[in-house]
């Protein structure tokens, strides 16, 4: 479905991605893992078109999209869900969701999808007239995911859906990501919450310093000592274990 070939990209003169290769096939959940400043978000922006490629090529369903504008990529079915803080606070929940379906002309199906989003996230239905600036962190995260669903994506890219959320809320959101994937949408989820992401996903990529360091089946990555070594970092893993024991 998505082919990323030797992609170099960054901001101005600062090159962050230094030759990323990735191949995502139809269906299922793929996760992209990495610490802060390793290029995760940059890669998402390169795929959605918010930043231009310096070198390399991206194809989607066999079409070269490297030079398409972001809104043209949305029309092809690549939809990026931004981080939770980036809803439109001065718009109501429903306006945000309607905005998500901006490219669509099929009114009836759009309406049905709106209901589907409300079924996935009942709290959004309760708050649909409320300004999205008044929602809690978890609710805003549900809103931006719902907004992404409204675009009728073939591939949905999520940027750290678990960031700064309580574990219970993260579980609910991850369960819904799973439901979206089951409905036939391919999902690429960027995460820092490694363990959760690898349980959720079937396949994983680990990015570091702008290149893909390790890739593989998620079940294997969890057990792979080099993943722990290179990315989880002994100390971080120990700390999280320590926290869990308390």
């Amino acid at each position: 479905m998505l082919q990323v070939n030797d992609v170099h990209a960054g901001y101005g003169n600062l090159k962050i991605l230094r030759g990323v290769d990735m191949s995502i096939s139809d269906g299922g959940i793929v996760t992209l893992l990495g610490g802060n400043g390793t290029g995760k978000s940059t890669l998402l922006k390169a795929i959605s078109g918010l930043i231009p490629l310096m070198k390399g090529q991206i194809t989607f369903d066999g079409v070269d999209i490297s030079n398409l504008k972001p809104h043209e990529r949305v029309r092809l079915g690549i939809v990026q869900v931004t981080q939770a803080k980036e809803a439109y606070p001065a718009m109501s929940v429903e306006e945000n969701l309607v905005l998500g379906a901006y490219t669509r002309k099929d009114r009836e199906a759009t309406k049905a999808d709106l209901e589907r989003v409300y079924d996935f996230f009942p709290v959004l239905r309760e708050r649909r007239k409320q300004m999205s600036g008044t929602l809690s962190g978890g609710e805003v995260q549900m809103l931006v995911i719902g907004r992404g669903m409204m675009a009728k994506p073939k591939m949905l890219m999520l940027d750290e859906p678990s960031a700064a959320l309580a574990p219970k809320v993260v579980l609910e959101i991850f369960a819904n990501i799973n439901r979206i994937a089951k409905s036939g949408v391919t999902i690429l989820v960027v995460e820092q919450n490694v363990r959760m992401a690898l349980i959720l996903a079937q396949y994983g990529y680990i990015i570091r310093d702008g290149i893909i360091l390790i890739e593989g089946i998620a079940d294997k990555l969890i057990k792979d000592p080099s993943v722990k070594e290179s990315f989880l970092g002994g100390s971080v893993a120990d700390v999280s274990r320590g926290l869990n024991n308390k």
Partner: protein
Amino acid sequence: MGFDLNSFLAFIIFGVTIGVVYGIVALGISLIYSGLDIVHFAHGEMYMFGAFFGLVLADNVGLPYPVALVGAMIITAIVGMSVERVFYRRLTRAGGGYTVAGMGMIICGFGMSVAMVNVAYFIWGAEAEPFRANLDYIPRLQFPGDIEVPESYVLTAIISVILMIGLHYFLRYTKPGLAVRAVAHNKDIAYLMGINVPLMISLIFGVACALAAAAGVLIGPMQSVQVEMGYLMLMKAFAAAVVGGFGSLPGAIIGGIMVGVFENLGAAYISASHKDIYAFLLLILVLMVKPSGLFGVEAKVKA
């Protein structure tokens, strides 16, 4: 001279009427600012061009006044969109999106202002031209106490209200309006919603310039139309926008009305020869009390 309630009310009525016109221009400036993050210094010239287009269409071509108004709005919108597309966009473009442009954009706006004034001199000459509009079908408004409001003022009030309601409806209830608001808030996310951001930016600019043109055609029959009229309008519309809170659309209208009323009362009771000072006096007073303007939120901070 004792205080005369009737003439006081008359000054307020005239102040409000002229004030909504300031408000309409301020609305355009605010729209461009919130949508494109640029302060458009050539907006007064859009107003001036609009007035001339209206004059040409009404007096030379002989179209009825309302048709000339709409025509002037459309032509000015096209001029504005071309100016934005050809000149401003090169300065504001960085990495495919619209970003804060800074100093270059301000200088470019000033340059555009000077250039447009000179183009106007070249086409229409330096003389002030009277705008003869046939407004006989508009009733004069008779208020109790011998206050009579001329047709052009009545018309101005009506059309201004229509324009404001139209803009409100467009932004609040239509799909392109929703997209405009999305672009105004955050261009990257608007892109990710599948919105054609460059197109929306053209649209914002066109609407803002059309509003300025409407103001020009409305002012025309009250005053005369001349090349230098844009500068003072720009200053007052800025005052109105800042008084109301820069970037706030209701604020622009309220600010405009306040400037209009304040100016008329100042001219009536303090000194008529310093009419143009009062707008700025009001500006200073409001900023002393509330630096963000009446309806302003805290300064827009860009990452």
